[in-house]
């Protein structure tokens, strides 16, 4: 039996839930894997794992330590979801002074252990495989486990959302309606969900920062501004899904 663990850091459990639903609807898989650690299911065996899925970004030193320890016990580590891969929605606070916020909210701010900028897990440990998405597409986890079971890994070809949009025969909301859409600069994997409902992509799979430098992203955001997107929206979008991309984009 292949031993699997799901570790949760700072996140909303959306990816865990997606994984769970996908696993439960593929019964033949459940017989091959032993789920050893999954706090939401009350499974807490912590000895060693063949596969460790990590949901969430690293927000404090306690999590950092825990992640390091789990890494040592695991053969393969899979970053699950945009939080783990790029920082996720909590990256909205990146660049803000978290000490100030703590003071206004808590009577004993010193007791709160929290980083200003959440870290993608690859800043802390070695990541073997990444599945992006907010939340991830459950099929990606099933696909991963199936391929692992036959002795391989899925081949992921990260493209733009536009690829899925065009393959699905959708009419471009940006070109045909003037709706700002982040599809061209966003990692594919969702199946162009938002454009299929006539709305623009808001980048939940993370920006394609390995291919696009700051200048090109700036040019793209300028185009969105021309289409009527407010600057504040661009700030939120660019920071909200990625600590990495945050570094690329001008401050508001």
């Amino acid at each position: 039996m292949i031993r699997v663990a799901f570790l949760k850091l700072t996140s909303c459990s959306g990816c865990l839930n997606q994984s769970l639903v996908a696993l439960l609807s593929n019964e033949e898989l459940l017989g091959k894997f032993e789920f050893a650690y999954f706090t939401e299911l009350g499974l807490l065996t912590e000895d060693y794992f063949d596969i460790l899925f990590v949901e969430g970004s690293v927000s404090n030193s306690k999590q950092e330590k825990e992640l390091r320890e789990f890494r040592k016990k695991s053969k393969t580590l899979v970053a699950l979801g945009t939080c783990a891969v790029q920082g996720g929605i909590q990256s909205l606070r990146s660049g803000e002074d978290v000490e100030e916020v703590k003071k206004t909210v808590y009577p004993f701010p010193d007791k709160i252990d929290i980083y200003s900028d959440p870290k993608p897990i690859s800043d802390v440990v070695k990541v073997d495989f990444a599945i992006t998405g907010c939340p991830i597409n459950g099929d990606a986890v099933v696909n991963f486990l199936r391929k692992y079971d036959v002795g391989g890994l899925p081949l992921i070809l990260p493209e733009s959302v536009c690829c899925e949009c065009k393959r699905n025969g959708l009419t471009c909301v940006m070109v045909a309606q003037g709706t700002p859409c982040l599809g061209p600069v966003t990692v594919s994997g969702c199946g162009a969900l938002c454009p299929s409902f006539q709305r623009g992509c808001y980048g939940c799979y993370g920006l394609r920062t390995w291919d696009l430098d700051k200048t090109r992203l700036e040019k793209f955001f300028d185009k969105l501004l021309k289409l009527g997107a407010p600057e504040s929206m661009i700030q939120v979008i660019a920071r909200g899904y990625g600590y990495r991309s945050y570094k690329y984009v001008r401050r508001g």
Partner: protein
Amino acid sequence: MINVSIRTDLYYVGNIYDLDKLIRILRETYGRRLQGYKYYGGKVTWGEINGISDLPLSVEDYVEPGLYRLREGYRFRHSSVSPKLFLLPSKQIYIVESNDFSQAKVLDYNVSIQYVLFGIKPCDLNAINVLDRMIGEKNPVYAHRRRSISAIIVEECLEPNNNCFCGVMNSGPFVEKDFDIAYARLDDKRVIFKYGSSFGRDVLSKLELRIAGEKEVYEYLEKTKLARERTSAVFKKSMKEIQESLMNKARDKELWLKISENCVGCGNCNFVCPTCFCLEFDYSINGEDQGVKIANWTGCLLYSYGQVAGGHFRPELYTRYRHFILHKFVFYPRQIERLGCVGCGRCITWCPMSIDLRECVNNAISG
């Protein structure tokens, strides 16, 4: 399809309801199924044509670089789809095989159905010719589907849109060969017809159209000439000079960086291009014991396109944009002895960054 080039001076005139008659005759008398631009839900996509209400007869496409609006009118040119959608579908199931690879089955396509491409554009017809030369029998899906096309009915353009440049690419806006019937809309009601094969002549004779008068033929030829001129005045140099110049400048990194500075590598241009044919294969495991090999559209503008075992052969975006242009203008001619671009302008219209291929080529050859 019958590839006979019949030069005819015979034109017939009818109205848009004769198109309905034509559809019915093809379906009922000849038992064909029709595929073409389909007006549905306020959009024009690709699909089965069953009657006149499926045709985009009362809309027209207004375009600029990076902009497309469908509005009232009677001059529909095209949308982001093309006959490629039918011939080379975006997701093709190639092979279904068992987990231990002991059994494999190439999926069979129903070739007994005889299709007619209805209302495709002159540039589309030329794009099919490009694909025929480039793919032909090499791809079983394409080959099967191509063979199932028994006739082609073309709608010629008397008024090109802003992004059309088929004239200079010698691919429109009218047709002279490789079609069965062609028609053009003189105005919102009158339609002028001609045939390009004996099958086309037989079908047309069943429509009981009247023979066109001299004035109508003159009007048609005059509008055609103007449309050709409008779609020809595009490049600063002749095609031969363009090709030479592109090759001479292929290694000028600064130039190509400048030309591609607005590109974000999204791949829309590749997907909407009626002659882009690149596919990537994806294996997925279906349940316990079955694997499926699927071919998906891909394109050379995408980062993943250049990813190979052990590295990447075009990691920089400018090299990918450069390849797009060079392939269309220089490499296709070497491969298939004709240009790879038919000047339909789709890559210009559907580029979210409004990048204009015509301008890029002009900048490349003069910069």
